[in-house]
């Protein structure tokens, strides 16, 4: 579904991503982890076309992302910090987004998160007046709204309350059974453990390991994701 080939990115002299090669398939739920500043968000932004790579190429559904923005129809994105136009009301945001996505017919909308997170209750509020967690809820509902086959979630659970957190995780697990591809970054490994079946670890822009959780379990004979990561890092 997503194919990344020898990707490099520098901000000035600072190397952010160095020779990344990755291949993600449908049905995979990727935990993209690594210390702060390891390039996780940059990688995600490059996939979305928000940041432009220095060299290397990315294919989404066999299509080079440099050929045009249409590949983004398949991607639902939940940013790390949800920042919306302050003056806009929640319902206006959804109206705007529907307006921008004429390619998705109305009966294809995925309203489950919109309903279970009760976005309808806050639809007349200004986006600027929402708390960080509420913005994340709106953002999560929006990422799923147009029924994408790929979901990219950047720190989705950090600001959410326990209940919304569970709702989102249930939704992620459910979308795995529908053969979607999910890429999640987070520092809360306990959350990731419940929803991911594959781990990609970045350190200083370099891919340190890229394996399924099953394989990691065998390698490290640990059961918890955080222990596996620690064990692997100590080996290196």
């Amino acid at each position: 579904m997503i194919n990344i080939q020898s990707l490099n990115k520098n901000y000035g002299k600072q190397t952010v991503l160095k020779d990344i090669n990755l291949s993600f398939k449908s049905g995979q739920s990727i935990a993209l982890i690594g210390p702060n500043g390891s390039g996780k968000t940059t990688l995600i932004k490059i996939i979305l076309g928000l940041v432009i790579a220095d060299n290397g190429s990315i294919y989404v559904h066999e299509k080079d992302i440099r050929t045009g923005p249409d590949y983004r129809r398949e991607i639902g994105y939940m940013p790390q910090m949800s920042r919306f136009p302050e003056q806009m009301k929640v319902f206006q945001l959804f109206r705007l987004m529907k307006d921008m996505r004429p390619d998705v017919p109305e009966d294809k909308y995925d309203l489950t998160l919109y309903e279970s997170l009760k976005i309808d209750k806050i639809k007349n509020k200004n986006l600027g007046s929402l708390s960080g967690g509420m913005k994340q809820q709106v953002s999560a509902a929006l990422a799923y709204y147009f029924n994408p086959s790929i979901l990219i979630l950047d720190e989705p659970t950090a600001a959410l309350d326990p209940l919304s957190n569970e709702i989102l995780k249930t939704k992620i697990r459910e979308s795995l059974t529908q053969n979607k591809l999910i890429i999640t970054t987070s520092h809360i490994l306990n959350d990731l453990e419940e929803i991911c079946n594959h781990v990609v670890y970045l350190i200083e822009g370099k891919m340190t390991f890229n394996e399924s959780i099953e394989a990691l379990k065998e390698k490290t004979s640990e059961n918890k994701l955080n222990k596996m990561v620690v064990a692997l890092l100590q080996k290196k």
Partner: protein
Amino acid sequence: MQKICFNIIYDLLKNKAILGYFILLSMVGWGVFMLESQPEKALLTLLQITLMVLPLITITFTTIYYYNSNEFILLLLAQPIKRGALIIGLYTGISIAFSGAFLLGIGLPLLFYYPGIESISLITSGVLLSLVFTAIALLISTYVSDKARGMGIALITWAFFAFIFDGLLLLFMYQLADYPIEKPVLMLSFLNPVDIARILVIMKTEASAMLGLSGAVFQNFFSGITGSIVSVLVMILWIVGPYLMAHRKFLRKDL
């Protein structure tokens, strides 16, 4: 692209700053004609205001608006929308809002009290200036990612075109007063869109008679139809040039 453009205009209409700008222009526009019995003088007052206030407000507001739209831009670019379409939509939306405010605020009273070639040329200059300074503001804000620095550069740019440039030009003329410098000065004034707008309007009014001998070269050039066409063309270059640079930068910018 149209959808983005409509959304920007809709957003701007809700914005109090653009409404304030329109009210300010209307008050000045109607007020000057009510206070001044000679419409010719009123037009010159409006010209001065157009040349000073319009660039200042257009450039600062557009710069602020771009930085404040960062979220909006990120939100839309995560959707299947071309970057090119977004920046064109942004530019068109802001330009329509500013030119509209000027047309309604200053244009209406001008046409009402003083319909004639002078008013038409002032209205044309005002609209062109709005387009020029919106483009320059976009150029600044796409190149400078820091908001405070961007605003600073926008203000310096305004000051440069509003009076620093003229000061330098005067210095140049004063130093070389013994030589026939009318032609070079004419060329140099094309480097400043505010000057082009000023000359374009003044040459249409009787005030041009007071420009003296060196003014005759200007008079010859600008009062004719070629002069008007050339100055409008140069103004269009001042719109297209900065806009295209901003467009190019926006296409390959990290957001």
